[in-house]
């Protein structure tokens, strides 16, 4: 259907994923590696499950319609289970990786936490799954024709694009849920992931009745998204706070004193949040360890002024 449909469907399917990738993954090389490795794990799971299905199809009678349909259902089932198994394997691998990263780091803290890894791994799974679903269709969408000469629906490209978008989101949320379940030994979370994956994949058998597959998938996406948000430390308060904070934005950057240190002892601190700049300021009697929370762009002149303000003898501890 020409270039318009090609670009339209690409943006629908991969727009949100592109946004997530650009803003959260691109800056950090470690996240990029985890994303690509995640994509590779999904790819291997697909390869193995498609091998099983292929062998089953070749060994069976091609003319037997119900048998072929049954084999397809079996193939989808097996593929879902295998994908989740590989997600578990990837979790194990990342756990080992964290130990390695801790050993390599200077301050004994891993630069990336398991929750961030969960999110990026899920996104990797989703991106590769989306690419496999959508690339063939996009190549055909470039041609002059559209679907329908044998009676199929004209909206095939659009619905496939929306389905791909929802699958990418779902994989991301499943990643977060699954890893959290593995971390905290909450087996029901892992079971929920597998169950929802089966439901979503199974609902696609209702196609070409696209309402039957898209509506449940979107509902499940919102549900799992909310669950994943809660598990990541969010709540409705934060949501409202973020919306409010948008309106009266304080001029300051910094500065929340992280911890006061005595010159002698230097115990291991809880790891500073990533994106934060640690600042060791040598002062006559005290050593302050400041953490600069990234909140807009750091303005160093203000930092200096704030520090001076704090250090005026007799002044109370202020948080600016």
């Amino acid at each position, binding site marked *: *259907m*020409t270039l*318009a*449909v090609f*670009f*339209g*469907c*690409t*943006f*629908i399917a991969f*727009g*949100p994923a*592109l*946004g*997530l990738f*650009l*803003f*959260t993954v691109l800056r950090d090389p470690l996240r990029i590696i985890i994303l690509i490795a995640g994509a590779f794990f999904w790819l291997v799971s697909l390869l193995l499950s498609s091998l099983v299905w292929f062998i089953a199809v070749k060994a069976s009678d091609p003319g037997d319609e119900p048998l072929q349909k049954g084999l397809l259902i079996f193939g989808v089932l097996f593929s879902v289970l295998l994908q989740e198994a590989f997600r578990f394997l990837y979790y194990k691998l990342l756990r080992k990786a964290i130990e390695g990263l801790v050993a390599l780091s200077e301050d004994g803290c891993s630069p990336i*936490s398991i*929750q*961030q890894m969960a999110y990026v791994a899920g996104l990797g799974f989703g991106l590769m799954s989306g690419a496999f679903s959508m690339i063939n269709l996009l190549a055909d969408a470039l*041609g*002059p*024709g*559209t*679907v*329908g*000469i044998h009676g199929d629906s*004209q909206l095939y*490209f*659009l619905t496939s*694009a929306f389905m791909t*978008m929802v699958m990418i989101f779902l994989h991301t949320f499943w990643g977060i849920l699954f890893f959290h379940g593995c971390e905290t030994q909450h087996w029901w979370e892992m079971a929920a992931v597998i169950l929802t994956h089966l439901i979503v994949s199974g609902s696609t058998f209702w196609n070409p009745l696209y309402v039957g597959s898209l509506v449940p998938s979107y509902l499940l996406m919102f549900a799992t998204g909310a669950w994943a*948000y809660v598990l*990541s*430390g*969010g*709540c409705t*308060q*934060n*949501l409202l*706070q*973020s919306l409010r*904070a*948008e309106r009266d934005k304080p001029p300051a950057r910094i500065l*929340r004193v*992280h911890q006061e240190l005595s010159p002698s002892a230097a115990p291991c601190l*809880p790891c500073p*949040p*990533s994106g934060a700049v640690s600042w060791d300021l040598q002062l006559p009697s005290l050593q302050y360890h400041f953490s600069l*929370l*990234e*909140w807009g762009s750091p303005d160093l002149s203000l930092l200096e002024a704030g520090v001076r303000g704090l250090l005026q003898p007799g002044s109370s501890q202020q948080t600016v």
Partner: protein
Amino acid sequence: MSGDTGVIHVVEKEQDLKWVLTDGPHPPYMVLLEGELFTRELMLQLKGSSRISGLAVAISKPSPAQGFSPGLKCPNDGFGVYSNNYGPQYAHCNWTVWNPLGNGLAYEDFNFPIFLLEDANETQVIKQCYQDHNLPQNGSVPEYPLCAMQLFAHMHAVTNTVTCMRRSSLQTAFSLNPEEVCDALSDYNVWSTLKPINTSSKIDPMDEVIIVATRIDSHSFFWNVAPGAESAVASFVTHLAAAEALHKVPDVQKLPRNIMFTFFQGETFDYIGSSRMVYDMQMDKFPIRLDNIHSFLELSQVALRNSSVLWVHTDPVSRRNESIQPQVKTLVEALINSSMGANVTLQEVSQSQPLPPSSFQRFLRAKQIPGVVLADHRTSFQNRYYQSMYDTAENILMKYPEGLSPEETLDYVTDTAKSLAEVATVVARALYQLAGGTGNTSAIQADPRMVSRMLYGFLIKTNNSWFQSIIKQDLKGLLGDELPQHYIAVTTLVNTTQLVQYVLANLTGTVVNFTKEECLNPEKTPNPEKEMYVYTWVQGSRDPNSTSRVPFCVQSTVHLTKAASPAFELKQWGSTEYSTWTESRWKDIRARIFLVASKELEIITLVVGIAILILSLLATYFINAKAHVLFSSPGDGGAVAY
């Protein structure tokens, strides 16, 4: 390169064309035309319109009753002998229009692809798609999605031969990876002599040769479709039968004059084969010179004789010459004498009528030679499908009874075959007399069964048992099951040329007792006669009891000479003296049908996509900026995970 796409519209009557040209709201259209409507008027209307992106013509079965010929009214005009210097009143068909039904469509330039649909099932699929999606409902405009067709037929050459040959030569001269855009039409002429001659040297200037000539190629509007039954096949089959009949006469090797049986390739395209042979004779590159030619006998279209009359055409201008006129009279008399007792009546046309388009005209251009052209038409052609896709076996009235197996059909003798065999008998007897033979000619008879087999092989199916037995072993791809066609093409040695070569060798040659080694390498065995003959190792017929074949060696005098226009040798690409026909190069030729959606739906998809992209980018930026707020639980003193 990306094909032409258009919404399908079926045109079954003249009124349907209005929708395509003016009324239809979804141009450009791809027209599916019934064969009956494929006329010059309609095509010129389509040519001028910008609402057409292509045309598919469904072949009309049976052939259109009013006749159809995409050739010119005056075939090969300007390349024959009649010009302003030679018989100006006969030039440009001023005296006789040879092909009055010719509409010249094949010589028009169309800027959209035109395909032929020969299979009625395919046409039905396209019509079904049209009826399902493109028919207006209750007088209103049909809604999207609409059924569309895409035709791929990109031609790399443009304008004319001079332009494309210039571009090709620049490519070959300067490019590391030359991309040539066109090729000259070329192939090979097949010729054989009654008495063997030494081809590596010239024959004695005192020797006289009678040349018998026919063309073996044809043409139609569509590429690689050229059944050419009446225009070429019937003539060369008759010629082959006459050659066979002559070779059976016991005392032919002692005849005073030699006879050369020549089969010219490329005559449809301004006499490629004959102009090349004349050029070679003039340049002394051919064993026989123009001075050796005693007389010329050509068989033009001979299959549609009206009440068994065969007309004898001569050239009025050369007959004014006092030395030529008596020789022509002798020729005609020999022919009329030979027709006694046969079911052929030979009559001379009016002496002031020019020659029809024939290879003899090229020889006359070089030197005045006495000669005749035999045809079944007195003035204009009897053939109402001259050089078209309808010039098939039905056109020459070949009828087979129902229910015959392929083997039985091969051996069945049709009335057409009998009629052509009679013409061959007359020609053979006349040639015997002209060559100086003095014996009784009533024993010279052409074999109708052989004629019928050849007609079957060249018009219906080349893959038959007889053809299989006379070809070389490693040429399996030569014989096919589809309808044979005789277009000269640009690849060397098309199937027709090779088959004519093998049939001629089989009919005029002798079986010799050589081993395969001796047959394939005749120069190894010492024998002075070796240079006069050509040896072919053919695979032979299949043993009825076993599956293997019994191959044998055939000794014949059949040779091939190049049939490429001298214009390309001389690099005169704009020549008006020699043929300059070329064929464009192309990569793939295919077609497909599918549905197209409305522009509105496409734009909506694009807009929705861009909106989702912008929305998601904004949302992600916002969430990322507020990540510390969104993902921090209130009990936590500040240690956040994100």
